[in-house]
């Protein structure tokens, strides 16, 4: 493996929250390069799409920059820990499914964190920590008590906004289903075709 492969593997591990502390500095340095950032973005895109077809979105070009700027603009409420330590159970996130390999030549990194959908949100939250250590992003019940002023908390329990839009989440699908059940709309049959419709959470 050449240096580039190693770097990409480290970036992937970082995205998985599995990179050992000794290499974090190297990986972060790699992320300062365009190549490294591209790899980082690609790994996340792959994971997003694996989690849900609805996530197959193309972000606008300067999404990261604007996101970072907005996070910067937020008041820091709690001092963030510098390093993120994931629960052991979240590090071993390979479910029953086939491990999925990235199709980049030489990159053999298994994208483990997306094998269990339930862990994905936690991993994403962890990733957000790494990108913007000055902002606290708490997942789970704590996030509900912690009401961030501009509501950009990345949490699986929230409707995350993007440019004033209420984004689709499983709760939204419930409303849509309930609406369509009583609507004489021509398209009710097709509405049932939504992946999340009528489905209890897959983690159960």
């Amino acid at each position: 493996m050449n240096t580039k492969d190693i770097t990409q593997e480290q970036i992937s591990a970082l995205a998985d929250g599995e990179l050992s502390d000794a290499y974090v500095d190297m990986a972060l340095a790699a992320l300062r390069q365009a190549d490294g950032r591209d790899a980082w973005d690609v790994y996340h895109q792959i994971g997003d799409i694996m989690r849900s077809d609805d996530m197959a979105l193309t972000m606008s070009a300067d999404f990261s920059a604007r996101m970072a700027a907005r996070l910067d603009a937020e008041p820091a409420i709690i001092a963030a820990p510098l390093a993120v330590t994931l629960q052991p159970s979240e590090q071993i996130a390979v479910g029953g499914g086939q491990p999925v390999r990235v199709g980049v030549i030489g990159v053999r990194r298994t994208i483990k964190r997306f094998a269990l959908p339930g862990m994905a949100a936690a991993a994403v939250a962890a990733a957000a920590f790494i990108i913007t250590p000055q902002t606290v992003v708490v997942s789970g019940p704590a996030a509900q008590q912690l009401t961030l002023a501009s509501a950009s908390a990345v949490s699986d329990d929230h409707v995350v906004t993007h440019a004033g839009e209420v984004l689709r989440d499983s709760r939204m699908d419930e409303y849509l289903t309930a609406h369509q059940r009583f609507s004489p709309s021509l398209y009710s049959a097709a509405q049932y075709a939504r992946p999340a419709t009528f489905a209890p959470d897959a983690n159960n």
Partner: protein
Amino acid sequence: MRQTRVLLGVVLSLVMVLSAHAESTDAANTADKQEAQALLKKIQSAAQKLNYSGTFIYQQANQIRTSRITHVLEGRNEIEKLEILDGQPREYIRRNEDVTCYMPETRTKIVEKRVTQDGFPAILAALPADLTDYYNVKMGETGRVAGFDCQAVLLEPKDNMRYGYKLWAEKNSGLLLRAQTLNGKNEIVEQISFTQIGIGNIDHSHLKPSFGNTSSWHTESSVINPTNLNEWTVTGMPPGFKKVRELKRMVADAPSSKSAAGTAAMRREVSQLIFSDGLVAISIFIEPGSQSRTEGSLQQGALNIVGKRQGDYWLTIVGDVPPAAMRQVANSIELKNK
């Protein structure tokens, strides 16, 4: 089964309205309207009485979904199977009023009564006899859909509070093969169309669930409680929209990934008000606003969603109407002081 019910409802509404008003229409348009009326009647009975099986595709904004429907009349029993072919496998099998939804990944069956059998008469009862005050109904062009020659019927809205529709019916049987929703610029915002269909001579074995023996599956029945939500008023409903239903239900939130182990799903009560002009509906969901959420709106094809906070409540408005109508509705919802 949704499909049939839906076609039936659209057609029933129109037929009633049209028959009531045929006499009073302008002489020049009478022939055209009567023709359209006859075709709508034909569409209605075709969906109920014919045996057919086909694959249809539904397009909403940039999304496409594919499903397969099989409909058979066995003596007096209507049996219908709807299979979702994209994403998570789902099958809905309806025998007259009883609907079973099969969810293989959790080995669950949801059993329920067909809601719209209640819903449709209710919608029809509440239907203003003046639907043609809000839509112009006329014959459209002819064309070919899924290998069949079709005749189109147009429903053109008279205001900007609703979308227009174009329905394509197979010329011989009258079966609806394509439906399109048109916005104010006459652009298609949503459409559904058979890509392949066989009419008559349907193999009845296609009506069985595809998952083998499902007797060991977990069975749930879905329960909905009618209620009275008169304390909520909506003054901005577009003309022609009447309240057709009000109900309450318990909704289980999916437990978050962190708390999944051991923690029961959060349950909350959601009220729903449904308004309809006979063709489409606007739902208003009301729930205590204890969770932190962000206000906003979302458009997906012809479907619009608005989320907003109102005092201690969180409101979600879902409607098959243009954004202008959604805004008007969302800004006019009030809780009366008792």
